[in-house]
């Protein structure tokens, strides 16, 4: 029998915010019936980008239901930006802790939230994964390298068993154990190297969604207004890893120096405010 805290039991027996949300502004869904758990979360968001209402539906065990319920309580009233700051550990903490083998329930909550916020901005699921998005490491549970890297980094994991507890990877046929070990090793190296190189301001690596949101924000607030003054405009088309695809509009579209604008205005700003490795590429539409 699992040792669930009273808070977990409370949120399982009396889940908050269960159900559908007609007219929801965003839906996020992760997991599948094959994996044994899935979470669908609906958000209603006002013009201040504040989450005014939230509902969920879960297929899963007691702690999966409790974690989803907890998450809805945590995000209600928060802006999307604030909500995105919630970590899986905070969801677990809200519940007074989860059994180690059940930590993946909190990760699922965090993932569903990301999916919903991505959905709000009209982004696709693929943006949720990090650079190595395509590579699936654990085929039994369809877990990507990106997610494994993230749970290892954010939760300071050191063993395959912990990785399995947090995201299920490695919990099936075990043929991916070597790969997981390698990822753990690489992230551990990162940990050793990071303090020297990284300035204190960046606490943790941005998730893909956070990065895309940040790029959008910088374009909206720092770049578009000045371009628009000259009758031009810029549009974010897509983000592929560190590549930011943009399309130039209005006078910018035919401007011979748009290349310079991109290099010196857009890319420089994005590198300054978002990530140093970003590369802006113009796509002609």
């Amino acid at each position, binding site marked *: 029998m699992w040792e669930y805290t009273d808070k977990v039991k409370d949120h399982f027996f009396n889940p908050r915010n269960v159900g559908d949300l007609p007219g929801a502004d965003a839906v996020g869904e992760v997991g599948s019936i094959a994996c044994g758990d899935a979470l669908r979360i609906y958000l209603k968001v006002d013009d201040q980008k504040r989450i005014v209402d939230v509902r969920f*539906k*879960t*297929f899963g065990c007691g702690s999966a*239901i409790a974690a989803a319920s907890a998450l809805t309580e945590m995000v209600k009233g928060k802006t999307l930006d604030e909500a995105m700051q919630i970590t899986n550990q905070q969801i677990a903490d809200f519940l007074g802790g989860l059994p180690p083998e059940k930590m993946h329930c909190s990760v699922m909550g965090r993932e569903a939230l990301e999916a919903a916020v991505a959905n709000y901005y009209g982004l696709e699921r693929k943006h949720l994964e990090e650079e190595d998005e395509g590579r699936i490491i654990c085929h039994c549970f369809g877990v990507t390298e990106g997610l494994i890297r993230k749970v290892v980094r954010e939760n300071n994991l050191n063993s395959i068993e912990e990785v399995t507890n947090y995201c299920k990877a490695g919990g099936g046929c075990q043929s991916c154990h070597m790969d997981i070990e390698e990822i753990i090793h690489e992230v551990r190296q990162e940990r050793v190297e990071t303090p020297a190189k990284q300035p204190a301001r960046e606490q943790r690596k941005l998730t893909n969604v956070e990065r895309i949101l940040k790029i959008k924000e910088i374009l909206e607030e720092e770049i578009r207004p000045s371009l628009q003054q000259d009758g031009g405009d810029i549009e974010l088309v897509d983000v592929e890893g560190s590549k930011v695809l943009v399309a130039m509009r209005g006078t910018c579209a035919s401007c011979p120096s748009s290349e310079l604008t991109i290099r010196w205005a857009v890319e420089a700003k994005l590198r300054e405010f978002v990530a140093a490795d970003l590369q802006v590429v113009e796509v002609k539409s």
Partner: protein
Amino acid sequence: MSRVVYLDNNATTRVADEVAAVMLPFYTELYGNPSSMHAFGGQVARHIAQARDQVAAILGADPTEILFVSCGSESDNMAIRGVLEANPDKRHVISTRVEHPAVLSLCNHLRKRGYEVTLLGVDGEGRLDLAELRNALRPDTAVVSVMYANNETGVVFPVEEIGQIVKAHGAAFHVDAVQAVGKLPLDLSQSTIDLLSLSGHKLHAPKGVGVLYIRKGIRLVPLIIGGHQERNRRGGTENVASIVGLGRACELARAALREENDRVRRLRDKLEDGILHSVPNVRVNGNREHRLPNTTSISFEYIEGEAILLLLDQLGICASSGSACTSGSLEPSHVLRAMGVPFTASHGSIRFSLSRYNTEAEIDYVLEHLPPLIERLRNISPFWKDYQEQLAKRS
């Protein structure tokens, strides 16, 4: 604790009052060592002999063929490893994909030690294909180990048919009968079974005692080397009280066999039919004809087993689940997977296993409270709504 409706008897059973009563003296005045030369210890040996007779009687075996061990797992291990060690030139083992971990994990271990292991598959109803067994048998097959009845689904294998095939090939035939003893009539004097395992706590005896039946003439190397106990086949001072308890439990089970088959089966069927009638989208896992009288494995589609168990537990109803989340592993039961039960159903499987202590009132209680609880979880499940929308579209 308030009301408890115990429907998890394939996990363990309540020690019968009659069993506990005969055990007590061996914790108090009758504490002698049965191997001692003095009469005070020696009298204890007589009680062990009596227990051996009682166990032999329920199996249709000779008392000299009964070996007391510590549990079902030890019995399984001793049978398979004992045969392998006694036949070092034979390096092949056959078993099935739906065995209890006591056998399945041992098979994996043997593989790592250089043995070849063939695990037979089952069909959608949990039945073996005997042609597959015939093809798998080889001249160097040392032992074939097959369970009598499955602990999760209750499906009963055609053990004698299997035994005839095995014996024609000269391999030893081991049967894990942990779930069958006391529920199905056995007569090993008329059987092809060479080795049979049983566990005390599945038939209202205490935990910590089991039996390995070894047909006369079968050579086995002991697992535990020590004193001369059990005629040099298992070292270690006898667990006297539990052995005496097991003897009494076998006697009771023999007398109650008919009741187990009739009354318990009727209650099980009432529970099963009641659920099938009152809850939509449920399925029974395993062949319903060749099945233990006390077991039903029911899948509730689109919801997850641990959540069901937690809600049942709140009502004092004890059952178990083949879902991934209850085991600590991430995949649903190996038995249901071997049967090809779809994920929509395997994650939501619940096993109810009855005993002669269950009453009709208890079954009524479950039938009253289970349907709303399933509905409650389905209302939380995103897949249930998807499914119903699909249904609506179709009609």
